[in-house]
């Protein structure tokens, strides 16, 4: 599924670079708090975008329910993030990571729109599994360690259990689709 992000700046490659291991740690992009806030918001917006396509295209009740949960939860996270940046008087700042996330999402959305009805549910859920794995890795490996503001760090830490629950939920739906 990650292959769908390939082409140009590969999303998979980006996530590979963001994946924290001692080998890649020196290659991690350095992000400021406004840049981290931007990455967090974009990552949530992407999944809301995927959910909107699923809600238009899927006929599977379990997939539709999952998509609704993704939409509601990621909107709730964005609301918290927006409230925090207002409180901190920080303006989220575009950066290489957020731009690549956006570019990757644009490609994935095109793929989701183009795939056949029959293949849609599997394509959407496979992407949800891959996307959540990648985002968890990025949040835990890059955003949390680099966040300077304690409240921003705390918000990111609080999001991780939700992302892991989403991943487990997506994997359950994925298993049921087989």
């Amino acid at each position, binding site marked *: 599924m990650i292959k769908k992000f390939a082409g140009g700046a590969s999303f998979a490659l980006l996530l590979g670079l963001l994946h924290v291991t001692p080998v890649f740690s020196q290659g991690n992009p350095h992000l400021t708090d406004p840049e981290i806030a931007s990455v967090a918001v974009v990552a949530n917006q992407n999944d809301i975008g995927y959910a909107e396509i699923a809600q238009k295209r899927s006929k599977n009740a379990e997939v539709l329910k999952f998509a609704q949960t993704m939409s509601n939860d990621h909107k709730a996270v964005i609301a918290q993030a927006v409230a925090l940046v207002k409180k901190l008087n920080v303006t989220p700042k575009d950066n290489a990571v957020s731009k690549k996330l956006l570019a990757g999402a644009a490609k994935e959305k095109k793929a989701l729109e183009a795939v056949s009805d029959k293949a849609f549910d599997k394509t959407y859920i496979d992407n949800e599994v891959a996307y959540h794995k990648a985002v968890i890795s990025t949040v835990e490996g890059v955003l949390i360690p680099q966040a300077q503001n304690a409240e921003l760090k705390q918000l990111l830490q609080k999001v991780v259990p939700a992302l892991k629950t989403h991943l487990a939920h997506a994997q*359950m739906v994925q298993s049921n689709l087989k």
Partner: protein
Amino acid sequence: MRTLRFAWRCLVVSAVVVVSAPALNGCSSDAGKEKPAPVVRPKEPDIYTVEIKDMKFVPDSIVVKKGDRVIFVNRDMVGHCVTEDGKAWTSGAIPGGEDWMLVAQKSSNYYCAIHVVMKGKIVVKDSVSK
């Protein structure tokens, strides 16, 4: 004259004693009657709290008595619900920061129907050791 006064005093004192006697002995005046049955008040239900935090029910298993109250408090930023496995009861959506109370009637397994991997259990027993 002295004899008359003494007799008068004795009469007054006797009268006071006679009039006061029932009052002084009031607590035992019903001694022969049947005592009312003691009022047995039903025991107040205990209240338990289950926190929903970090996408988990904490604790995920509790033991209560029938009639006890279980309050589910959502500490997460996302909405949750508490639904019995067979859908015999459900809280409906509990937004972040809000709570919902269940009166425990029987043992139940439950889950969050929004995040179906979140599960918990209530065990209802006749008595609960604390």
